Protein backbone atom coordinates (compact mmCIF):
# COMPACT_ATOMS: atom_id res chain seq x y z
CA UNK A 1 0.00 0.00 0.00
CA UNK A 2 1.37 3.39 -0.88
CA UNK A 3 1.44 6.43 1.37
CA UNK A 4 -1.79 8.02 0.17
CA UNK A 5 -3.74 4.81 0.79
CA UNK A 6 -2.34 4.51 4.29
CA UNK A 7 -3.19 8.14 4.92
CA UNK A 8 -6.78 7.62 3.75
CA UNK A 9 -7.13 4.55 5.95
CA UNK A 10 -5.79 6.35 8.97
CA UNK A 11 -7.97 9.38 8.34
CA UNK A 12 -11.07 7.23 7.90
CA UNK A 13 -10.39 5.44 11.18
CA UNK A 14 -9.74 8.74 12.92
CA UNK A 15 -12.91 10.38 11.56
CA UNK A 16 -15.04 7.31 12.29
CA UNK A 17 -13.70 6.98 15.84
CA UNK A 18 -14.25 10.64 16.67
CA UNK A 19 -17.73 10.60 15.12
CA UNK A 20 -18.63 7.39 16.99
CA UNK A 21 -17.56 8.82 20.34
CA UNK A 22 -19.83 11.81 19.75
CA UNK A 23 -22.62 9.61 18.42
CA UNK A 24 -22.49 7.34 21.49
CA UNK A 25 -22.50 10.23 23.97
CA UNK A 26 -25.12 12.38 22.32
CA UNK A 27 -27.10 9.56 20.72
CA UNK A 28 -27.53 7.68 24.01
CA UNK A 29 -28.75 10.78 25.75
CA UNK A 30 -31.18 11.59 22.94
CA UNK A 31 -32.38 7.98 22.80
CA UNK A 32 -33.04 8.10 26.56
CA UNK A 33 -34.99 11.34 26.24
CA UNK A 34 -37.04 9.99 23.33
CA UNK A 35 -37.68 6.67 25.07
CA UNK A 36 -38.56 7.92 28.55
CA UNK A 37 -39.86 11.48 28.28
CA UNK A 38 -42.97 13.00 26.89
CA UNK A 39 -42.76 16.54 25.67
CA UNK A 40 -44.20 18.75 23.02
CA UNK A 41 -42.40 18.42 19.72
CA UNK A 42 -41.14 14.90 20.42
CA UNK A 43 -42.46 13.54 17.14
CA UNK A 44 -40.96 16.30 14.92
CA UNK A 45 -37.65 15.97 16.76
CA UNK A 46 -37.65 12.23 16.16
CA UNK A 47 -38.33 12.80 12.45
CA UNK A 48 -35.64 15.45 12.20
CA UNK A 49 -33.05 13.19 13.79
CA UNK A 50 -34.01 10.27 11.56
CA UNK A 51 -34.01 12.25 8.31
CA UNK A 52 -30.28 11.75 7.52
CA UNK A 53 -31.01 8.03 7.39
CA UNK A 54 -33.27 8.44 4.35
CA UNK A 55 -32.07 11.65 2.73
CA UNK A 56 -29.43 11.41 0.00
CA UNK A 57 -26.12 12.17 1.76
CA UNK A 58 -25.59 15.05 -0.63
CA UNK A 59 -28.74 16.69 0.68
CA UNK A 60 -27.53 16.25 4.25
CA UNK A 61 -24.20 17.70 3.16
CA UNK A 62 -25.96 20.61 1.53
CA UNK A 63 -27.78 21.39 4.76
CA UNK A 64 -24.48 21.23 6.60
CA UNK A 65 -23.03 23.80 4.21
CA UNK A 66 -26.07 26.01 4.85
CA UNK A 67 -25.50 25.78 8.58
CA UNK A 68 -21.77 25.52 8.95
CA UNK A 69 -20.34 27.13 5.79
CA UNK A 70 -18.36 30.35 6.03
CA UNK A 71 -21.59 32.21 5.25
CA UNK A 72 -23.81 29.65 6.94
CA UNK A 73 -26.24 30.34 9.75
CA UNK A 74 -23.87 29.15 12.46
CA UNK A 75 -20.65 29.09 10.48
CA UNK A 76 -20.59 32.82 9.83
CA UNK A 77 -20.50 33.63 13.52
CA UNK A 78 -17.85 31.02 14.06
CA UNK A 79 -15.79 32.59 11.28
CA UNK A 80 -16.47 36.07 12.57
CA UNK A 81 -15.29 35.32 16.09
CA UNK A 82 -12.42 32.95 15.38
CA UNK A 83 -11.46 33.46 11.75
CA UNK A 84 -11.79 29.72 11.36
CA UNK A 85 -14.22 27.69 9.31
CA UNK A 86 -14.90 24.02 9.71
CA UNK A 87 -15.35 23.59 5.96
CA UNK A 88 -12.72 21.48 4.17
CA UNK A 89 -11.09 20.29 7.37
CA UNK A 90 -11.18 16.77 8.80
CA UNK A 91 -13.54 18.10 11.50
CA UNK A 92 -16.10 18.65 8.76
CA UNK A 93 -15.74 14.96 7.86
CA UNK A 94 -16.37 14.12 11.52
CA UNK A 95 -19.45 16.36 11.57
CA UNK A 96 -20.83 14.79 8.39
CA UNK A 97 -20.24 11.26 9.68
CA UNK A 98 -21.76 12.16 13.03
CA UNK A 99 -24.98 13.51 11.53
CA UNK A 100 -25.37 10.56 9.20
CA UNK A 101 -24.59 7.90 11.83
CA UNK A 102 -26.60 9.46 14.69
CA UNK A 103 -30.01 8.02 13.68
CA UNK A 104 -28.60 4.48 13.69
CA UNK A 105 -27.45 4.92 17.27
CA UNK A 106 -30.67 6.58 18.38
CA UNK A 107 -32.91 3.95 16.79
CA UNK A 108 -31.16 0.91 18.26
CA UNK A 109 -30.55 2.46 21.66
CA UNK A 110 -34.06 3.80 21.97
CA UNK A 111 -35.49 0.37 21.23
CA UNK A 112 -33.14 -1.17 23.80
CA UNK A 113 -34.11 1.36 26.49
CA UNK A 114 -37.80 0.96 25.76
CA UNK A 115 -37.51 -2.79 26.22
CA UNK A 116 -36.24 -2.44 29.80
CA UNK A 117 -39.02 -3.49 32.20
CA UNK A 118 -40.62 -0.27 33.46
CA UNK A 119 -41.18 -1.78 36.89
CA UNK A 120 -37.42 -2.14 37.36
CA UNK A 121 -37.05 1.58 36.84
CA UNK A 122 -39.89 2.30 39.27
CA UNK A 123 -38.35 -0.05 41.84
CA UNK A 124 -35.03 1.76 41.52
CA UNK A 125 -36.73 5.09 42.18
CA UNK A 126 -38.56 3.76 45.24
CA UNK A 127 -35.24 2.40 46.53
CA UNK A 128 -33.94 5.94 46.72
CA UNK A 129 -32.08 6.29 43.45
CA UNK A 130 -32.83 9.23 41.19
CA UNK A 131 -32.96 9.28 37.43
CA UNK A 132 -29.20 9.63 36.95
CA UNK A 133 -28.19 6.68 39.12
CA UNK A 134 -31.05 4.59 37.79
CA UNK A 135 -29.80 5.20 34.28
CA UNK A 136 -26.29 3.99 35.06
CA UNK A 137 -27.19 1.14 37.38
CA UNK A 138 -30.28 -0.29 35.72
CA UNK A 139 -31.05 1.09 32.27
CA UNK A 140 -27.51 1.14 30.90
CA UNK A 141 -26.54 -2.41 31.95
CA UNK A 142 -29.83 -3.80 30.64
CA UNK A 143 -29.68 -2.05 27.28
CA UNK A 144 -25.97 -2.16 26.66
CA UNK A 145 -26.19 -4.82 23.96
CA UNK A 146 -28.42 -2.59 21.89
CA UNK A 147 -26.15 0.35 22.56
CA UNK A 148 -23.02 -1.51 21.52
CA UNK A 149 -24.79 -2.74 18.39
CA UNK A 150 -25.79 0.85 17.66
CA UNK A 151 -22.23 2.04 18.19
CA UNK A 152 -20.81 -0.63 15.89
CA UNK A 153 -23.31 0.22 13.16
CA UNK A 154 -22.56 3.91 13.62
CA UNK A 155 -18.84 3.29 13.31
CA UNK A 156 -19.33 1.29 10.12
CA UNK A 157 -21.60 3.97 8.72
CA UNK A 158 -19.09 6.69 9.63
CA UNK A 159 -16.26 4.73 8.01
CA UNK A 160 -18.25 4.49 4.79
CA UNK A 161 -19.52 8.06 4.73
CA UNK A 162 -19.02 9.59 1.30
CA UNK A 163 -21.62 12.02 -0.02
CA UNK A 164 -22.02 14.45 2.84
CA UNK A 165 -18.30 14.31 3.56
CA UNK A 166 -17.47 15.21 -0.02
CA UNK A 167 -19.83 18.19 0.20
CA UNK A 168 -18.40 19.67 3.39
CA UNK A 169 -14.81 18.38 3.57
CA UNK A 170 -14.04 18.12 -0.11
CA UNK A 171 -11.50 15.85 -1.72
CA UNK A 172 -8.11 17.17 -0.66
CA UNK A 173 -5.44 14.46 -0.95
CA UNK A 174 -3.42 14.22 2.22
CA UNK A 175 -5.95 16.36 4.10
CA UNK A 176 -9.57 15.33 3.79
CA UNK A 177 -9.52 12.38 1.41
CA UNK A 178 -11.02 9.57 3.50
CA UNK A 179 -10.93 6.07 2.10
CA UNK A 180 -14.30 6.13 0.30
CA UNK A 181 -13.26 9.38 -1.33
CA UNK A 182 -9.85 7.97 -2.25
CA UNK A 183 -11.63 4.98 -3.87
CA UNK A 184 -13.77 7.38 -5.91
CA UNK A 185 -10.66 9.31 -7.01
CA UNK A 186 -8.79 6.16 -7.99
CA UNK A 187 -11.72 4.76 -9.93
CA UNK A 188 -12.43 7.99 -11.76
CA UNK A 189 -8.77 8.36 -12.71
CA UNK A 190 -8.50 4.74 -13.90
CA UNK A 191 -6.14 3.56 -11.17
CA UNK A 192 -7.90 0.19 -10.88
CA UNK A 193 -5.21 -1.64 -8.98
CA UNK A 194 -5.32 0.86 -6.13
CA UNK A 195 -9.14 0.97 -6.14
CA UNK A 196 -9.40 -2.84 -6.09
CA UNK A 197 -7.21 -3.12 -3.03
CA UNK A 198 -9.16 -0.53 -1.09
CA UNK A 199 -12.54 -1.94 -2.13
CA UNK A 200 -11.66 -5.46 -1.00
CA UNK A 201 -10.28 -4.13 2.24
CA UNK A 202 -13.39 -2.03 2.86
CA UNK A 203 -15.76 -4.88 2.10
CA UNK A 204 -14.01 -7.12 4.60
CA UNK A 205 -14.02 -4.45 7.30
CA UNK A 206 -17.73 -3.69 6.78
CA UNK A 207 -18.70 -7.36 6.78
CA UNK A 208 -16.83 -7.86 10.04
CA UNK A 209 -18.65 -4.97 11.63
CA UNK A 210 -22.04 -6.24 10.50
CA UNK A 211 -21.19 -9.64 11.90
CA UNK A 212 -20.30 -8.10 15.26
CA UNK A 213 -23.46 -6.01 15.29
CA UNK A 214 -25.55 -9.08 14.49
CA UNK A 215 -23.98 -11.09 17.28
CA UNK A 216 -24.55 -8.29 19.75
CA UNK A 217 -28.19 -7.82 18.94
CA UNK A 218 -28.89 -11.49 19.72
CA UNK A 219 -29.64 -11.90 23.39
CA UNK A 220 -27.36 -13.89 25.59
CA UNK A 221 -24.52 -14.23 23.10
CA UNK A 222 -22.12 -12.00 24.95
Amino acid at each position, binding site marked *: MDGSVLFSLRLSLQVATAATVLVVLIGTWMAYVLARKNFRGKEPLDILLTLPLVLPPTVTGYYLILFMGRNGMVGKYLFYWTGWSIMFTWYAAVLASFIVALPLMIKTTRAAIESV*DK*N*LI*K*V*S*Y*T*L*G*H*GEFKTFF*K*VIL*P*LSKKGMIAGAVLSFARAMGEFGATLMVAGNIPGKTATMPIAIYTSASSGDWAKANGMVVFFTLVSATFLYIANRLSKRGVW
Partner: protein
Amino acid sequence: MIEIHVEKNLGNFSLNLSLNLQEGMSVLFGPSGAGKTLTLQTIAGLVEPDSGTVRVNGVVYFDKKRGVNLPIHRRRVGYVFQEPSLFPHMTVFENIAYGISGLSSEERTRRVNHMIGKMRLSGLEKNLPHQISGGQKQRVALARALVTSPLLLLLDEPFASLDNPVREELRFDLLRIREEDHVPVVFVTHDVEEAFVLSDEIVVLNDGKVEQIGSKEEIFYRPQTQKVAKFFGVKNIFHGKVTDIRPGEGEMTVWVEEQSFQSSIPYREGVVVGEWVPFCIRPEEIMVLKEDRPIKKNLRANIFTGKIVRIIEKGAEHTLFFRQSQDDYDFEISMPNLAYRSLRIKEGQLVRVAFKWESIWLIPEGTCVV
Protein backbone atom coordinates in the same frame (compact mmCIF):
# COMPACT_ATOMS: atom_id res chain seq x y z
CA MET B 1 -50.35 7.78 60.04
CA ILE B 2 -50.97 7.92 56.32
CA GLU B 3 -53.35 10.59 55.18
CA ILE B 4 -54.56 10.48 51.60
CA HIS B 5 -57.03 12.95 50.25
CA VAL B 6 -56.77 12.88 46.49
CA GLU B 7 -58.61 12.99 43.22
CA LYS B 8 -57.35 11.54 39.99
CA ASN B 9 -59.21 11.41 36.72
CA LEU B 10 -58.21 8.87 34.10
CA GLY B 11 -60.82 9.25 31.39
CA ASN B 12 -63.35 6.54 32.19
CA PHE B 13 -62.16 6.01 35.75
CA SER B 14 -61.79 8.40 38.60
CA LEU B 15 -60.23 7.93 41.99
CA ASN B 16 -61.73 9.97 44.78
CA LEU B 17 -60.27 9.08 48.12
CA SER B 18 -60.26 10.45 51.60
CA LEU B 19 -58.45 8.05 53.87
CA ASN B 20 -56.55 8.00 57.12
CA LEU B 21 -54.66 4.77 57.62
CA GLN B 22 -53.38 3.72 61.03
CA GLU B 23 -49.92 2.33 61.62
CA GLY B 24 -50.08 -1.40 61.20
CA MET B 25 -51.15 -3.56 58.33
CA SER B 26 -53.81 -1.88 56.25
CA VAL B 27 -55.29 -4.01 53.53
CA LEU B 28 -56.77 -2.33 50.49
CA PHE B 29 -59.40 -4.73 49.29
CA GLY B 30 -61.66 -4.56 46.28
CA PRO B 31 -62.48 -6.02 42.88
CA SER B 32 -60.27 -5.48 39.83
CA GLY B 33 -60.43 -1.90 38.67
CA ALA B 34 -61.42 -0.56 42.09
CA GLY B 35 -58.38 1.73 42.24
CA LYS B 36 -56.24 -0.22 44.70
CA THR B 37 -53.02 -0.10 42.70
CA LEU B 38 -53.62 3.50 41.73
CA THR B 39 -53.89 4.36 45.43
CA LEU B 40 -50.53 2.72 46.13
CA GLN B 41 -48.94 4.48 43.17
CA THR B 42 -50.29 7.77 44.44
CA ILE B 43 -48.63 7.22 47.81
CA ALA B 44 -45.35 6.17 46.19
CA GLY B 45 -45.35 9.08 43.77
CA LEU B 46 -45.54 6.91 40.67
CA VAL B 47 -48.78 8.66 39.77
CA GLU B 48 -49.49 12.33 40.33
CA PRO B 49 -53.01 13.11 41.56
CA ASP B 50 -55.00 15.93 39.95
CA SER B 51 -55.63 17.48 43.33
CA GLY B 52 -55.39 16.88 47.04
CA THR B 53 -52.75 15.94 49.58
CA VAL B 54 -50.74 12.88 50.59
CA ARG B 55 -48.99 12.88 53.97
CA VAL B 56 -47.07 10.15 55.74
CA ASN B 57 -46.21 10.62 59.42
CA GLY B 58 -46.67 14.34 59.02
CA VAL B 59 -44.32 14.59 56.02
CA VAL B 60 -46.03 16.17 53.04
CA TYR B 61 -45.48 13.94 50.00
CA PHE B 62 -47.91 15.77 47.82
CA ASP B 63 -49.89 18.94 48.13
CA LYS B 64 -51.37 20.31 44.94
CA LYS B 65 -52.24 23.71 46.38
CA ARG B 66 -48.77 24.29 47.80
CA GLY B 67 -47.09 22.84 44.73
CA VAL B 68 -45.36 20.07 46.69
CA ASN B 69 -44.61 16.80 44.93
CA LEU B 70 -41.78 14.95 46.65
CA PRO B 71 -39.81 12.92 44.08
CA ILE B 72 -40.27 9.15 44.34
CA HIS B 73 -36.70 8.52 45.43
CA ARG B 74 -37.03 10.87 48.39
CA ARG B 75 -40.26 9.40 49.76
CA ARG B 76 -38.60 6.40 51.45
CA VAL B 77 -41.34 3.96 50.61
CA GLY B 78 -40.68 0.32 49.87
CA TYR B 79 -42.71 -0.94 46.92
CA VAL B 80 -43.19 -4.57 45.95
CA PHE B 81 -45.09 -5.45 42.80
CA GLN B 82 -47.01 -8.59 41.91
CA GLU B 83 -44.04 -9.60 39.79
CA PRO B 84 -40.81 -9.62 41.84
CA SER B 85 -39.11 -7.19 39.42
CA LEU B 86 -35.60 -8.15 40.51
CA PHE B 87 -32.73 -6.60 38.60
CA PRO B 88 -31.82 -9.48 36.27
CA HIS B 89 -28.18 -8.46 35.95
CA MET B 90 -27.54 -8.49 39.69
CA THR B 91 -27.16 -11.37 42.14
CA VAL B 92 -29.51 -11.87 45.06
CA PHE B 93 -27.00 -10.10 47.30
CA GLU B 94 -26.60 -7.15 44.92
CA ASN B 95 -30.35 -6.84 44.49
CA ILE B 96 -30.87 -6.59 48.24
CA ALA B 97 -27.96 -4.18 48.64
CA TYR B 98 -29.17 -1.95 45.80
CA GLY B 99 -31.11 0.57 47.87
CA ILE B 100 -28.58 0.98 50.68
CA SER B 101 -26.56 4.14 50.33
CA GLY B 102 -24.30 6.22 52.52
CA LEU B 103 -22.93 3.31 54.54
CA SER B 104 -19.48 1.72 54.73
CA SER B 105 -19.15 -1.47 52.76
CA GLU B 106 -18.82 -3.57 55.95
CA GLU B 107 -21.99 -2.12 57.40
CA ARG B 108 -23.72 -2.62 54.11
CA THR B 109 -22.65 -6.26 53.92
CA ARG B 110 -23.67 -6.79 57.53
CA ARG B 111 -27.15 -5.41 56.90
CA VAL B 112 -27.68 -7.37 53.73
CA ASN B 113 -26.54 -10.60 55.38
CA HIS B 114 -28.83 -9.97 58.34
CA MET B 115 -31.75 -9.48 55.95
CA ILE B 116 -30.78 -12.58 53.96
CA GLY B 117 -30.95 -14.64 57.15
CA LYS B 118 -34.23 -13.09 58.18
CA MET B 119 -35.85 -13.75 54.82
CA ARG B 120 -34.61 -17.37 54.67
CA LEU B 121 -32.39 -16.71 51.67
CA SER B 122 -29.08 -18.01 53.00
CA GLY B 123 -27.06 -19.82 50.38
CA LEU B 124 -28.65 -17.98 47.49
CA GLU B 125 -26.56 -14.80 47.74
CA LYS B 126 -24.60 -15.41 44.56
CA ASN B 127 -27.52 -16.65 42.47
CA LEU B 128 -29.01 -14.59 39.71
CA PRO B 129 -32.78 -14.00 39.76
CA HIS B 130 -33.47 -16.52 37.00
CA GLN B 131 -31.84 -19.24 39.09
CA ILE B 132 -34.24 -19.08 42.03
CA SER B 133 -37.92 -19.97 42.53
CA GLY B 134 -40.90 -17.61 42.42
CA GLY B 135 -41.34 -17.60 46.17
CA GLN B 136 -37.64 -16.92 46.72
CA LYS B 137 -37.74 -14.08 44.20
CA GLN B 138 -40.59 -12.43 46.04
CA ARG B 139 -38.71 -12.84 49.33
CA VAL B 140 -35.72 -11.10 47.72
CA ALA B 141 -38.01 -8.29 46.57
CA LEU B 142 -39.34 -7.91 50.12
CA ALA B 143 -35.83 -8.00 51.57
CA ARG B 144 -34.66 -5.40 49.06
CA ALA B 145 -37.43 -3.05 50.12
CA LEU B 146 -37.10 -3.71 53.85
CA VAL B 147 -33.33 -3.37 54.12
CA THR B 148 -33.58 0.36 53.37
CA SER B 149 -35.75 0.82 56.52
CA PRO B 150 -38.61 2.44 54.63
CA LEU B 151 -41.12 4.66 56.41
CA LEU B 152 -43.82 2.66 54.75
CA LEU B 153 -44.07 -0.59 52.84
CA LEU B 154 -46.43 -0.72 49.86
CA LEU B 155 -47.26 -4.20 48.63
CA ASP B 156 -49.27 -4.60 45.44
CA GLU B 157 -50.69 -8.14 45.42
CA PRO B 158 -47.18 -9.46 46.04
CA PHE B 159 -48.21 -13.08 46.51
CA ALA B 160 -50.91 -13.31 43.84
CA SER B 161 -48.84 -15.21 41.29
CA LEU B 162 -47.47 -17.80 43.73
CA ASP B 163 -48.68 -21.32 44.49
CA ASN B 164 -50.90 -21.74 47.51
CA PRO B 165 -48.39 -23.28 49.97
CA VAL B 166 -45.71 -20.75 49.02
CA ARG B 167 -48.23 -17.95 49.35
CA GLU B 168 -49.11 -19.05 52.87
CA GLU B 169 -45.45 -19.24 53.86
CA LEU B 170 -44.86 -15.74 52.60
CA ARG B 171 -47.87 -14.40 54.46
CA PHE B 172 -46.41 -15.74 57.67
CA ASP B 173 -43.02 -14.28 56.78
CA LEU B 174 -44.67 -10.92 56.32
CA LEU B 175 -46.52 -11.15 59.64
CA ARG B 176 -43.27 -12.11 61.38
CA ILE B 177 -41.45 -9.13 59.83
CA ARG B 178 -44.28 -6.85 60.86
CA GLU B 179 -43.90 -7.97 64.46
CA GLU B 180 -40.15 -7.44 64.42
CA ASP B 181 -39.83 -4.22 62.42
CA HIS B 182 -43.15 -2.48 63.07
CA VAL B 183 -43.02 -0.94 59.61
CA PRO B 184 -46.46 0.26 58.51
CA VAL B 185 -47.71 -1.74 55.55
CA VAL B 186 -50.34 -1.01 52.94
CA PHE B 187 -51.22 -4.28 51.28
CA VAL B 188 -53.35 -4.57 48.16
CA THR B 189 -55.29 -7.76 47.54
CA HIS B 190 -58.53 -9.05 46.09
CA ASP B 191 -58.28 -12.27 48.07
CA VAL B 192 -60.67 -12.41 51.06
CA GLU B 193 -58.61 -14.96 52.93
CA GLU B 194 -55.44 -12.92 52.50
CA ALA B 195 -57.21 -9.79 53.69
CA PHE B 196 -58.24 -11.61 56.85
CA VAL B 197 -54.97 -13.30 57.63
CA LEU B 198 -52.95 -10.12 57.28
CA SER B 199 -55.00 -7.11 58.16
CA ASP B 200 -55.22 -4.96 61.22
CA GLU B 201 -57.55 -2.77 59.26
CA ILE B 202 -59.37 -3.29 55.97
CA VAL B 203 -60.22 -0.59 53.46
CA VAL B 204 -62.80 -1.74 50.96
CA LEU B 205 -62.49 0.13 47.69
CA ASN B 206 -64.97 0.06 44.87
CA ASP B 207 -65.04 2.11 41.70
CA GLY B 208 -62.41 4.55 42.96
CA LYS B 209 -64.14 5.22 46.26
CA VAL B 210 -63.95 3.96 49.80
CA GLU B 211 -66.87 1.66 50.50
CA GLN B 212 -65.96 0.95 54.13
CA ILE B 213 -63.01 1.07 56.51
CA GLY B 214 -62.87 -1.08 59.60
CA SER B 215 -61.49 -4.02 61.50
CA LYS B 216 -61.93 -7.54 60.12
CA GLU B 217 -64.88 -8.12 62.44
CA GLU B 218 -66.61 -4.95 61.35
CA ILE B 219 -66.17 -5.69 57.67
CA PHE B 220 -67.04 -9.34 58.02
CA TYR B 221 -70.02 -9.17 60.33
CA ARG B 222 -71.18 -5.59 60.03
CA PRO B 223 -70.85 -4.53 56.37
CA GLN B 224 -72.03 -0.98 55.86
CA THR B 225 -73.09 -1.45 52.26
CA GLN B 226 -74.49 -4.30 50.21
CA LYS B 227 -71.38 -4.26 48.01
CA VAL B 228 -69.12 -4.86 51.00
CA ALA B 229 -71.42 -7.65 52.12
CA LYS B 230 -71.16 -9.27 48.69
CA PHE B 231 -67.36 -8.85 48.42
CA PHE B 232 -66.91 -10.65 51.73
CA GLY B 233 -69.05 -13.61 50.95
CA VAL B 234 -72.35 -12.71 52.55
CA LYS B 235 -74.51 -14.64 50.14
CA ASN B 236 -77.86 -14.04 51.77
CA ILE B 237 -78.91 -10.45 51.30
CA PHE B 238 -82.61 -9.65 51.51
CA HIS B 239 -84.91 -6.66 51.30
CA GLY B 240 -87.63 -6.85 53.86
CA LYS B 241 -90.66 -4.65 54.41
CA VAL B 242 -91.15 -3.82 58.07
CA THR B 243 -94.58 -5.08 59.20
CA ASP B 244 -94.26 -4.75 62.94
CA ILE B 245 -91.84 -3.06 65.32
CA ARG B 246 -91.25 -3.98 68.97
CA PRO B 247 -88.64 -1.51 70.23
CA GLY B 248 -89.07 -2.76 73.79
CA GLU B 249 -87.88 -6.23 72.80
CA GLY B 250 -85.39 -4.85 70.31
CA GLU B 251 -87.09 -6.70 67.50
CA MET B 252 -89.08 -6.11 64.39
CA THR B 253 -90.82 -8.31 61.88
CA VAL B 254 -90.15 -8.00 58.17
CA TRP B 255 -91.81 -9.54 55.15
CA VAL B 256 -89.41 -10.48 52.39
CA GLU B 257 -91.50 -10.28 49.27
CA GLU B 258 -89.05 -11.75 46.79
CA GLN B 259 -88.43 -14.99 48.66
CA SER B 260 -91.82 -14.81 50.41
CA PHE B 261 -90.88 -15.37 53.98
CA GLN B 262 -91.36 -13.56 57.24
CA SER B 263 -88.51 -12.99 59.59
CA SER B 264 -87.84 -11.52 62.96
CA ILE B 265 -84.81 -9.25 62.92
CA PRO B 266 -83.08 -6.81 65.31
CA TYR B 267 -84.81 -3.48 65.68
CA ARG B 268 -83.04 -0.39 64.52
CA GLU B 269 -83.92 3.00 65.86
CA GLY B 270 -85.78 5.24 63.49
CA VAL B 271 -87.23 2.47 61.40
CA VAL B 272 -90.97 2.75 60.82
CA VAL B 273 -93.59 0.24 59.71
CA GLY B 274 -93.78 0.07 55.92
CA GLU B 275 -90.11 0.87 55.41
CA TRP B 276 -87.87 -1.43 53.38
CA VAL B 277 -84.65 -2.52 55.02
CA PRO B 278 -81.75 -4.55 53.59
CA PHE B 279 -80.39 -7.24 55.89
CA CYS B 280 -78.08 -10.16 55.55
CA ILE B 281 -76.99 -13.45 57.07
CA ARG B 282 -73.63 -15.09 56.43
CA PRO B 283 -73.98 -18.56 54.88
CA GLU B 284 -72.13 -20.19 57.77
CA GLU B 285 -74.60 -18.71 60.28
CA ILE B 286 -77.56 -20.67 58.96
CA MET B 287 -77.98 -24.11 60.42
CA VAL B 288 -79.80 -27.18 59.34
CA LEU B 289 -81.84 -28.55 62.26
CA LYS B 290 -81.71 -32.18 63.28
CA GLU B 291 -85.18 -33.67 63.76
CA ASP B 292 -84.49 -35.20 67.14
CA ARG B 293 -82.97 -32.19 68.85
CA PRO B 294 -84.87 -29.58 70.85
CA ILE B 295 -84.81 -26.13 69.27
CA LYS B 296 -82.95 -23.42 71.14
CA LYS B 297 -84.84 -20.31 72.07
CA ASN B 298 -82.85 -17.87 69.93
CA LEU B 299 -83.64 -19.93 66.84
CA ARG B 300 -87.35 -20.18 67.28
CA ALA B 301 -88.23 -16.92 65.58
CA ASN B 302 -86.64 -17.85 62.28
CA ILE B 303 -87.30 -21.43 61.29
CA PHE B 304 -88.00 -22.38 57.69
CA THR B 305 -89.04 -25.63 56.07
CA GLY B 306 -87.99 -26.42 52.54
CA LYS B 307 -85.83 -28.45 50.23
CA ILE B 308 -82.10 -28.69 49.73
CA VAL B 309 -81.95 -28.19 45.97
CA ARG B 310 -78.22 -28.40 45.41
CA ILE B 311 -75.05 -29.36 47.25
CA ILE B 312 -71.58 -28.21 46.21
CA GLU B 313 -68.42 -29.55 47.75
CA LYS B 314 -65.83 -26.83 48.31
CA GLY B 315 -62.75 -28.42 49.78
CA ALA B 316 -63.04 -28.06 53.52
CA GLU B 317 -66.70 -27.17 53.46
CA HIS B 318 -69.98 -27.84 51.71
CA THR B 319 -72.38 -25.29 50.30
CA LEU B 320 -76.07 -26.14 50.38
CA PHE B 321 -78.79 -24.31 48.53
CA PHE B 322 -82.10 -24.22 50.36
CA ARG B 323 -85.46 -23.41 48.81
CA GLN B 324 -88.79 -22.83 50.43
CA SER B 325 -90.43 -20.55 47.85
CA GLN B 326 -90.71 -20.62 44.09
CA ASP B 327 -87.34 -18.95 43.63
CA ASP B 328 -84.20 -20.78 42.39
CA TYR B 329 -83.04 -20.92 45.95
CA ASP B 330 -83.59 -18.74 48.99
CA PHE B 331 -80.63 -19.33 51.28
CA GLU B 332 -77.09 -20.34 50.72
CA ILE B 333 -75.77 -22.35 53.65
CA SER B 334 -72.20 -23.36 54.17
CA MET B 335 -70.92 -25.80 56.76
CA PRO B 336 -67.71 -27.63 57.58
CA ASN B 337 -67.45 -31.15 56.16
CA LEU B 338 -67.71 -32.71 59.60
CA ALA B 339 -71.09 -31.09 60.28
CA TYR B 340 -72.24 -31.91 56.77
CA ARG B 341 -71.42 -35.60 57.12
CA SER B 342 -73.18 -35.92 60.47
CA LEU B 343 -76.38 -34.53 58.92
CA ARG B 344 -76.42 -37.04 56.05
CA ILE B 345 -78.33 -34.73 53.73
CA LYS B 346 -79.04 -35.49 50.09
CA GLU B 347 -80.17 -33.21 47.31
CA GLY B 348 -83.98 -32.96 47.23
CA GLN B 349 -84.35 -33.73 50.89
CA LEU B 350 -86.88 -31.85 53.01
CA VAL B 351 -85.24 -30.06 55.94
CA ARG B 352 -85.77 -27.36 58.50
CA VAL B 353 -83.24 -24.56 58.69
CA ALA B 354 -82.89 -21.74 61.18
CA PHE B 355 -80.76 -18.78 61.95
CA LYS B 356 -79.98 -17.03 65.16
CA TRP B 357 -81.49 -13.69 65.62
CA GLU B 358 -78.05 -12.26 66.52
CA SER B 359 -76.57 -13.36 63.21
CA ILE B 360 -78.79 -11.04 61.27
CA TRP B 361 -77.17 -7.79 60.25
CA LEU B 362 -79.08 -4.79 59.04
CA ILE B 363 -77.13 -3.07 56.31
CA PRO B 364 -77.29 0.67 57.08
CA GLU B 365 -76.92 1.79 53.46
CA GLY B 366 -79.86 1.62 51.11
CA THR B 367 -82.64 1.81 53.66
CA CYS B 368 -85.58 3.47 51.98
CA VAL B 369 -89.26 4.12 52.34
CA VAL B 370 -91.33 2.70 49.50
